[in-house]
């Protein structure tokens, strides 16, 4: 399980954009995984199993925070702006900011497929939704990200831009 920590941290950080929270999420994931190790089927994908535990923790925490901050989220999204791209160059900070402004379910889909190298099917299993839902979330995510970073939808090339897999 030790070997899975780096990829879990990368997934957690991509989701929440904060190292301390990311490590808290990984810690929670490891504890839960350890408690329920008997539920893990040998020979199946350990990474996918751990990812599922992690994203469930993330989304339940998000729901709790939503109830507390209620509609602050929407206002924040509206007021936080991302610097427009200059000559198509986007620096990492702006990119991260834009990523964090995406709806969480879209960010999750984009990260799973576009960075973690999951297939649409694997991503759907982790996010517990239909394959088509993952595909549309990825598409919406890349459209929004591109818009936020100052590009219009017309500038989008083929839909494969964010696909890592086949």
């Amino acid at each position, binding site marked *: *399980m*030790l070997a899975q*920590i*780096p*990829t879990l*941290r*990368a*997934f957690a*950080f*991509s989701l929440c954009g904060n190292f301390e929270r*990311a*490590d808290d999420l*990984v*810690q929670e994931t*490891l*504890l839960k995984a*350890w408690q329920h*190790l008997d539920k893990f089927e040998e020979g199946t994908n350990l990474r996918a199993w751990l990812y599922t535990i992690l994203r469930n923790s993330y989304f339940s925490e998000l729901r709790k925070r939503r109830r507390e901050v209620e509609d602050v989220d929407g206002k924040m999204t509206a007021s936080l702006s991302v610097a427009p*791209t*200059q*000559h*198509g*160059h*986007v620096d*990492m900070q702006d*990119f*991260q900011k834009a*990523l964090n402004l995406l709806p969480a379910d879209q960010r999750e889909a*984009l*990260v799973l497929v*576009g*960075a*973690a190298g999951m297939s649409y099917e694997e991503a759907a299993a982790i996010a517990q939704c239909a394959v088509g839902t993952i595909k549309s979330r990825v598409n919406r995510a*890349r459209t929004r*990200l*591109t818009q936020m*970073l100052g*590009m219009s939808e*017309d*500038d*989008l*090339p*083929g839909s494969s*831009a*964010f*696909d*890592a897999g086949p």
Partner: protein
Amino acid sequence: MHEDDERTPGAKNTRKPEIKDASALPQHLGRKLRSLFSDVEAQPVPDRLRELLEALAAKEKKPE
């Protein structure tokens, strides 16, 4: 705008500080996302997480 040049051979691997061709941006973003992820992945495991696993392993012996 024309999108003809978006897949210019070799464009993927050249690390230019800026990309003039606007249609190249989404690919540029895809690379950003992957490098964000892999940069974190490349970091050493924080002590508290390593120690947590060691403590769990010491408490009850379960397979790694």
